[in-house]
């Protein structure tokens, strides 16, 4: 009996993980199709991405509810009764029992509330990772010269997106001109990636399209020639950092350059902190007192 409960519990966890993964992935696709975060799209088209999201949610829930019809579990025909989940037998359910088949108390092999929460979190992380990997491939494929020519008519593709991605650091100079350009950007802002030492100072200020940011947030910190321009402006401060960057580049490039940027910023912050805090250390206070 204990063995059956354990087997039932592992079956429930596995099935719920698949359900939560499909639903999370579907919800993610709908969300990123609304926000335009192309780096997480599974398909190259916005409407198709949204339709895929709805389809994934529908398929996930339907499969989860109906699978007792063909998957053996603690819901054998005749053993699923209202009012209790004890005494279930192993087998497949009938259509009349399918609605109650997965309603199992956690002491009889079902899942506890905490288990649901943990499995959902795991599924959400997996779904995001999956979307990031497939989105990267999708972006790089659709960014290849032949395919990008074919999708010129797609109004959802900002020009910079088609150019900037796949190339990364080895792009010729022309392809580096447009890292932050959406439809709202003035042409001048597309020419100047922030922090690029080859550009005149005036062009360093405005790489992206968010006009709500104060000028200070648009300024470029020390230019890192290995990072895409949108990540040279510091931790989370710029309009094309974070998920915004995924509108223009792919997830793997974003994560790599963001992590480098984070470490560099943290190091410079720490150095700056150390260089100022020593003024208030005990020896320096004594020294200043002595001098005075």
């Amino acid at each position: 009996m204990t063995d059956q409960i354990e087997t039932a519990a592992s079956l429930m966890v596995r099935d719920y993980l698949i359900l939560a993964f499909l639903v999370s992935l579907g919800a993610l696709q709908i969300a990123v199709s609304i926000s335009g975060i192309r780096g997480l799209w599974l398909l190259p088209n916005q409407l198709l991405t949204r339709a895929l999201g709805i389809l994934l949610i529908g398929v996930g829930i339907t499969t989860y509810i109906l699978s007792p019809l063909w998957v053996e579990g603690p819901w054998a025909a005749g053993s699923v009764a209202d009012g209790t989940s004890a005494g279930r037998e192993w087998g497949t359910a009938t259509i009349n029992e399918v609605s109650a088949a997965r309603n199992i108390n956690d002491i009889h092999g079902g899942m506890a509330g905490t288990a649901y929460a943990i499995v959902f979190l795991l599924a959400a992380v997996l779904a995001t990772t999956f979307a990031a990997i497939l989105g990267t491939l999708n972006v790089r494929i659709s960014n290849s010269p032949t395919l990008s020519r074919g999708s010129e008519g797609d109004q959802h593709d900002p020009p910079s997106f088609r150019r900037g991605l796949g190339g990364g650091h080895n792009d010729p100079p022309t392809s580096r001109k447009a890292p932050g350009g959406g439809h709202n950007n003035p042409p001048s802002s597309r020419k100047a990636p922030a922090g690029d030492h080859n550009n005149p100072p005036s062009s360093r200020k405005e790489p992206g399209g968010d006009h709500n940011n104060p000028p200070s947030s648009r300024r470029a910190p020390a230019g890192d020639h290995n990072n895409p321009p949108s990540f040279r402006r510091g931790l989370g401060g710029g309009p094309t950092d974070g998920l915004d960057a995924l509108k223009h580049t792919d997830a793997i490039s974003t994560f790599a350059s963001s992590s480098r940027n984070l470490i560099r910023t943290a190091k410079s912050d720490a150095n700056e902190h150390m260089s100022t805090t020593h003024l208030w250390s005990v020896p320096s206070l004594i020294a200043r007192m002595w001098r005075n």
Partner: protein
Amino acid sequence: MWINGFVGTSPTFDHIARIVASDYLMPLAFSAVIFAIWFVGRNLAERRRYQRGTLLAATAIGISNLIVDIIDSAYDRQRPFDELGDSLQLIFYRSTDPSFPANPMAVVFAIAMGVWLVDRRIGWTLMAGAAIYSVIRVYVGTFYPTDVIGGAVIGVISALIAWFLFELLKPIPELFLRLLRGIGIA
């Protein structure tokens, strides 16, 4: 138990009720919504607002569970199927934890209220979903109406507590979001 008295009137509705009342469907739907709104903002300001909503809802879930645990340890109300016996038509399994307050309702209302604080439209939709979930849970016989009302109140209060905490400790969630943005996931 007037609501539960309708059980058996429509077998099709009973099947739907068993699925809607389940532990997996509605909590998953609500969780998927707070996961999705993390990514849904079209610009930086909108995304910050929605991501704050996700953090608010998650914090509210934690607070509501804490409150429910405290009440459960102090007051063990029996389930309606234990008290009413055969006069109740139970079409769900026999839960073994205390009936008041309804933990699932506390969780879904905490999420709904947490989202409502940043987006009224999505928040009202979730509130409606949470209300349907509550009625269905009473319909299948696992809770008294006062259990689900108590759970809903705890959920709403938890979200408000979370909101006050966020206002009080504003730099912390902001820093957290900035950090996540720094590594490209916010």
